[in-house]
């Protein structure tokens, strides 16, 4: 579980990017951060990842504040984090298998055969077929995302962060990736936090949704409650497309 307490973040000027966010991300759930471009989602995610130091406030990882840990403990905590980047961020000089084995090589004392065995387990889990010896440039975007997920979970992380995990993918592959992340979250009891714009993801896997607006937490709920949200910013954002407007109308009608 990750608990955020009054998180503020600025970059030197008077204006704060994050203006006092407090929320909780539960274990074993897919937690989504949504909001318009410039709302502070990426800065929030980077604070959660420990890449940005908060200007004020605390982030507690299972009760432990990252900023109060020694550098050694911070490093150990980092090893418990997995991250799926928007562009996958695979190491292009390494093969798919080497990319997945990389965290094991860096942080465990496993021998090569053991590392390979574990890598192949997760490769199987994310349904990557015949790609072990290929370079990232030789596989499709969807497969790259699967490799990124496999690399993120190979070291059994407690926290999984995903930045726009299905951007640039076709709708079917995007749904498959969403479902894969949700299955893995439930299966390994991970605290998963996904930064997304994609309303399909919100409706598909949004077990907890945090809506940011101009650096504030404007609304939080789940995919079930987002239909009834009485916040104009949320409804304008979520129902900006006709498709979702109609879905909402249908759901509200059904509930009446």
């Amino acid at each position, binding site marked *: 579980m990750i608990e955020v307490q009054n998180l503020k973040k600025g970059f030197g000027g008077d204006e704060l990017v994050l203006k006092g966010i407090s929320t909780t991300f539960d274990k074993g759930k897919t937690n989504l951060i949504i909001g318009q471009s410039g709302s502070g989602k990426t800065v929030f995610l980077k604070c959660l*990842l*420990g*890449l940005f130091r908060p200007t004020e406030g605390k982030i507690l990882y299972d009760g432990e504040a990252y900023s109060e840990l020694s*550098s050694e403990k*911070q*490093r*150990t*905590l*980092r*090893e418990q*984090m997995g*991250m799926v*980047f*928007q*562009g996958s*961020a*695979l*190491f*292009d000089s390494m093969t798919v298998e080497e990319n997945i084995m*990389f*965290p094991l*090589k*860096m*942080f465990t004392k496993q021998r090569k055969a053991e590392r390979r065995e574990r890598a192949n387990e997760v490769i199987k889990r994310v349904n990557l077929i015949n790609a072990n010896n290929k370079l990232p440039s030789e596989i499709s975007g969807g497969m790259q995302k699967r490799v990124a997920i496999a690399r993120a979970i190979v070291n059994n992380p407690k926290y999984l*962060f995903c930045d726009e995990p299905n951007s640039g993918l076709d709708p079917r592959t995007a749904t498959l990736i969403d479902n894969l992340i949700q299955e893995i979250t439930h299966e390994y009891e991970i605290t998963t936090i996904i930064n997304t714009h994609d309303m399909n993801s919100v409706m598909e896997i949004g077990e907890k949704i945090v809506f940011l607006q101009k650096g504030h937490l404007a609304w939080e709920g789940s995919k079930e409650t987002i239909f009834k949200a009485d916040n104009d910013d949320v409804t304008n954002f979520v129902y900006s497309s006709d498709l979702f407007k109609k879905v909402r109308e249908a759901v509200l009608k059904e509930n009446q």
Partner: protein
Amino acid sequence: MGYLKEIGLYFMMLKGVFIKPTKTSVLRNLVLKEIDDLIIGSLGIVCFISFFVGGVVAIQTALNMDNPILPKSLIGFASRQSIILEFAPTFISIIMAGKVGSFITSSIGTMRVTEQIDALEVMGINSLNYLVFPKIIAMLFYPFVIAIAMFLGILGGYAAAVFGGFATGDQFIQGLQEEFVPFQLVYAFIKTFVFALLLATIPSYFGYYMKGGALEVGKASTTSFVWTSVFIILTNYIITQLLLS
């Protein structure tokens, strides 16, 4: 102020390179890979340029010796002095700023643009140590490249002088041995060592701290070449003033 900030950031980067070291077994492989990319991969162009520029130095010296009083051995002497003192350490380093420097900046810059550096940081890896330290260690082998450049430059000079009919082999070798000051070799290798550090770190700095996309990677490579060359020339002047004046 901007330049001061950049210089400060460069030294902070250097500090970051030496803390939180990467696992030894991983580091060993990285160093070997960098030696292959930066040192072995540069040998071809260095050998080619050294041999032919050495030849040109000998021909130019011969063609500018109009006075019959001047001994033919001067061709060997002048070739040796120019190659050992300046051509091999400085001129080759400027070429390496283009070859190795651009490679370092563009490879690290591409990793920055494609979030690979962020991926390393998120995993708890000191990306500066992981990326830059192996390059610094690999560049410690750079003096061997310069030694080869010196040898081939002089060999090129010998070939041009002898086969071009400007001097006999004996005259050229006599010139090579005349008034040889061993400290000049020490001076040449001291500055080679300093250039090696500049070649590894300045391009790394421009790659590591670059912002933007693919276009900016190209721009960063060019900027890195310019600044590496500027600092090589400046340190060359300072070291020469300190050691030879």
